[in-house]
């Protein structure tokens, strides 16, 4: 089954880190991605720009309404994702727990709705 691991964290926390600490953080994510790669389960992954760069779009009365900012304003923002392909929820949880993001934020595990 495919699962999307969504990484939520407080961006202020990241910005408050020293350059050396940020480098260390990036290295930890690099190692994690390498481990996913080696296990042959990584189906996709990206880091996202901060929520301040987000734009929301919806159709209101037939016209697109475009707004600055993320859909949900909160301290914890989605900062990236991993799409993995594993046997079951337990395996997905085990990988989520290894993600550096689980240490300084929250990882949400969502099964992908498989379309046949």
């Amino acid at each position, binding site marked *: 089954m495919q699962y999307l691991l969504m990484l939520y964290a407080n961006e202020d926390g990241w910005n408050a880190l020293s350059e050396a600490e940020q480098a260390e953080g990036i290295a930890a994510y690099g190692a994690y991605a390498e481990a996913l790669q080696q296990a042959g389960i990584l189906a996709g992954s990206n880091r996202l720009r901060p929520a301040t760069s987000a734009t929301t779009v919806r159709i209101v009365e037939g016209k697109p309404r475009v707004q600055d900012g993320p859909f949900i304003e909160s301290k914890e923002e989605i900062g990236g994702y991993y799409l993995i392909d594993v*046997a*079951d*929820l*337990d395996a*997905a*949880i085990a990988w989520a727990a290894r993600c550096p993001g689980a240490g300084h934020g929250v990882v949400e*595990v969502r*099964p992908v709705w*498989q379309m*046949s």
Partner: protein
Amino acid sequence: MAGAAPNTARATAESVARDCYGRLLAFLAAGFRDVAAAEDALAEAFAKALEEWPVRGVPDNPQAWLLTVARRKRIDGIRHERIGENVMSQLQVLGDAGHESADRFELPDRRLALLFACAHPAIDESIRAPLMMQTVLGLDATRIGSAFLVSPAAMAKRLGRAKDKIREAGIPFHVPARDELDGRLGSVLEAIYAAFAASWPDPLGIETARKDLSDEAIFLARLLFELLPGEPEVAGLLACMLHAHARRRARRDGAGCYVALADQRIDLWDFAMIREAESLLIQASAFRAPGRYQLEAALQSAHVERRLRGVDNWAAVLQLYDALIEVTGSPIVAINRTLALAEVEGVEAALAALPDPGNAPALTGYQPYWAARADLLARSGAAAQAHQAYEMAIGLETDDAVRLFLRERQSRLGRG
């Protein structure tokens, strides 16, 4: 066996349902990785049995027959839905596995895996016990709902949602590996205990008993003990529940009023059950790995010993409570501990040790807190405050027998 009378066929179907429902469902659910689909397929198989067995006779192996029919129903169902290829091929494997000859057929017991799926941390905690009751024992939502004080419709909806979660999130049907077993087993034990103690007619913190799912919860604990004999906490949970259950008949008097342990008629206790509990506790202690349920069982055992032998073992009881608080950190255990403390160090010390609702606001709505407080205040001579605390306890109670008991205690205030 062709031409069996309809009554025999029906009786056989009912007996298979009673004895094997959980096994059949667990096996199907693990294969389909879908509890709801397994329930539907099994229900259809039973319906077909009631139709066919009276005409064609009861098959030599009714379980194997039911499984084969249930799988076929599922495969037919899948063909109508549009579901991924991999599910289809998985079912093909399942279907093939069903061709064993009937006389050599032995149904693998997947109930343990089913219990772990029902009590998975990804399942909402409050629905784990009801889910186990429904899947392993085949109880309906009405029966489960009434035990958990939830309407049948709401219970059915929540059970449905939990089954959807099992399917959609891909919750596995397997027994966790050794290194995660301890943590995961905890949630299975908790769910069984929750079913046993869903309501707590427990105004003095000693009696833990349920209205009507206690037999079912004991069945699950026995099953778990049979499947995991090397886990001392499983034996501890079973011992704890058997101890509490052994006194069920003594817990109500002729008028339906709750009777506290100190006043119970010992001749109404079930001594076979008490002996079984004691023997389980000894088996568990041989592992030298004490835990919450062994400690709770040891507490029950100490309370029973005090009544039987007239010994003052409150100091030992207090030590057990201390150990239990260390393991659970529970404010509820802390409340019960104060009643033992009152016996060892006096009522004033106990009142001082009672948790402060200011620090744990949930206590304000927790009946045993007010009952314990009322009891201690009454014994300290603070009749007016005790009266008020009893009023709170009575207002929060759901069990008539306990309400009567508390009302009786309250009316005795200032009279003696």
